[in-house]
């Protein structure tokens, strides 16, 4: 009987590390050709509009970065957290709290604090995210409740908190009783990069908050790969018994992981409300906190892989939009395509650690039960 089996490689194949994404993309292209053709679309045109067109202009690149930046930021925080086996699923909620805290500063102090408003908002955003994350940290570290559940439930609560604020105490009195805060003044908004006079950025929405992300990338790498607490977190995640034996505090690891994740998510929240949105309203629910989970795991929890994964997810998102606009392709098809591409990417990684061999034996000889 002919079959296939996987055989573990002696060492991870470096060739495959490069080839795997290529194989995945090739597979997706193949299947995608089928899907698009079946829908009566020219497959090549569809691919062009999905992957190339969105980034073929300066504006497109700016939009890609604008979308990838919060994904990357949150993804970095989650990567560190997941390495420590602390499964923070509530980054979205922590992001909301970051936005809430930043908004609180903006609408109350933007008239009086001048140039100090924005930095205060950034700090407040990080604090807000950390505060929300600490609720989960307490529940896990001190109260032994599972953090997946607590962080997820708190996300729903955070969303309702936003609604309470914009329908109630923080509502703009001039907004016809609609759920909006006042628009932020210029000193409470991240300046556009275009305003610094770089011609090629003319008319784009990219703003200064991207520097937060750019700084976070090497910081996250350094923390995870080069510091002792980072090492402790990793060991705690890989081999908890060994970590305990070595005296690494489990509770402290949970707190550090959650606070880092919360701070990152909170900063992403500020970058949104003080960036392209410019206010707090009840419609703000970009799902970055959940997409970032995919980003972090696609990047295999490596801080240097997170930016790449974030760019990919952002491109998939933009591409889905572009094919809707250009080809009138239903959005559902974009989802199908994205889901397939991701699954192929995830499945293709197997070849890094294993090779495929044909087997000639029938079933594998059953191992006699230990007596």
């Amino acid at each position: 009987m002919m079959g296939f089996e996987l055989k573990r490689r002696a060492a991870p194949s470096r060739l495959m590390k490069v080839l795997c994404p290529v194989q995945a993309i090739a597979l997706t292209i193949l299947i995608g050709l089928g899907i698009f053709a079946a829908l009566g679309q020219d497959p090549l045109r569809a691919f062009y509009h999905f992957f190339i067109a969105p980034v073929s202009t300066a504006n497109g690149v700016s939009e890609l970065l604008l979308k990838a930046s919060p994904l990357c930021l949150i993804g970095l925080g989650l990567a560190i957290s997941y390495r420590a086996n602390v499964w923070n699923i509530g980054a979205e909620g922590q992001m909301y709290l970051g936005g809430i805290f930043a908004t609180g500063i903006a609408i109350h102090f933007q008239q009086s604090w001048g140039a100090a408003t924005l930095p205060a908002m950034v700090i407040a955003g990080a604090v807000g995210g950390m505060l929300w994350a600490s609720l989960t940290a307490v529940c896990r570290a001190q109260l032994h409740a599972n953090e997946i559940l607590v962080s997820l439930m708190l996300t729903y609560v955070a969303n309702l908190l936003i609604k309470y604020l914009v329908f109630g105490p923080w509502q703009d009195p001039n907004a016809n009783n609609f759920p909006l805060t006042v628009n932020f003044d210029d000193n409470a908004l991240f300046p556009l990069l275009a305003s610094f006079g770089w011609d090629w950025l003319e008319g784009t929405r990219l703003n200064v908050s991207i520097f937060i992300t750019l700084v976070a990338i090497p910081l996250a790498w350094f923390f995870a790969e080069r510091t002792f607490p980072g090492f402790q977190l990793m060991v705690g995640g890989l081999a908890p018994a060994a970590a305990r034996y070595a005296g690494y505090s489990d509770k402290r690891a949970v707190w550090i992981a959650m606070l880092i994740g919360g701070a990152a998510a909170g900063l992403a929240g500020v970058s949104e409300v003080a960036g392209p949105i410019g206010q707090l309203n009840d419609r703000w629910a970009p799902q970055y906190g959940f997409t970032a989970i995919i980003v972090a795991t696609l990047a295999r929890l490596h801080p240097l892989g997170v930016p790449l994964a974030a760019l990919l997810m952002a491109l998939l998102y933009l591409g889905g939009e572009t094919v809707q606009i250009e080809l009138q392709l239903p959005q559902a098809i974009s989802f199908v395509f994205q889901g397939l591409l991701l699954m192929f990417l995830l499945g293709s990684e197997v070849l890094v650690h294993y090779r495929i061999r044909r087997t000639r034996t029938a079933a594998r000889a059953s191992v006699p039960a230990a007596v």
Partner: protein
Amino acid sequence: MKRKSFWIAGIAAALGLASVGAGVGTAAEPLKMAFVYVGPVGDGGWTFAHDLGRKTLEKNLGSKVQTSYVENVPEGQDAERVIRDLATKGNKMIFTTSFGYMEQTLKVAKSFPKVEFYHATGFKSAPNVTIYNTRMYEPAYLAGIIAGHMTKSGKLGFVASFPIPEVVRNINAYTMGARTVKPNITTKVVWISTWYDPSKERQAAETLIGQGADVLLQNTDSSATLQTSQDKGVYAFGWDSDMTAYAPKAHLASCIEVWGGYYTKAAEAELAGKPLHQTVWGGIKEGMNDLVSLNSVIPDEARKQVAAKKADMASGKFMVFTGPIKLQDGSVKLPAGKSLTDKEIDSINYYVEGVEGQLPGK
């Protein structure tokens, strides 16, 4: 010599002007129009109604227009990108069909002064941003009249999304309409804090029915309220689109938006070179909404009353928010003979007499 060239120039200019005039008359290229939807076209609700309007527009104007749409556009920073993309791709008219696109529409409109933007249900306009909306409180009022005839318990129910003026005035209109039939009718409201969530809508309907409500109206986007009402043997109304097919026994009538006429008018105006810039808030009179598919169990007396009121709305004789309007405590908010202005209706934040409970956030 000079005079000859002057005449030649003059004739050439006249010919040129004539050809331009002829060009305006015959549209060489179809007018590109784009629609930005907040939900899927298959939602059978808000977006479905807009898309029906778009299809009507296409039917009416044929090859003169070329429409496209983008669905499920989230109301955050993505919307600005989508709207901007549509503007850069040659669309001359862009319709953003949800309140949450307001700021984004305004921002993009600033960069594209030659493109006409139309924003539904908003309140901020600009030289090239026109607001349009439909007075759904009128069909809600008519539904109230029917409810007044059909209720046995004297208690009505309303499954509501968020306490924004749009929803509050529909609750008020529903109650006011019902009270013209039975002056002691009360309405209970349940807020589910979302526009679409069949599970929550169902639980809300169950709660209201458990409290004795036997005719329900909704401002949410699924037919769960109707389904639940049929399961429990009470009545309900459809919203946004004709929802008869979901619950034929429980369905009394549907309050629907009708956008096709306005879209056609807007396109024709653009084609004629005079784009509509006036804020349009149309109701029964302008044909921008309707109460349809009345159930056969509705008695003739009720039908006559509805038809009469509808005719009055169409002729402008009757306006829903005309005094006397009383608050929940019985005090008179608006005396007889006066009517609320559009601005007051657009920002209404109080319940009228008959509605039970407190408005959230107040």
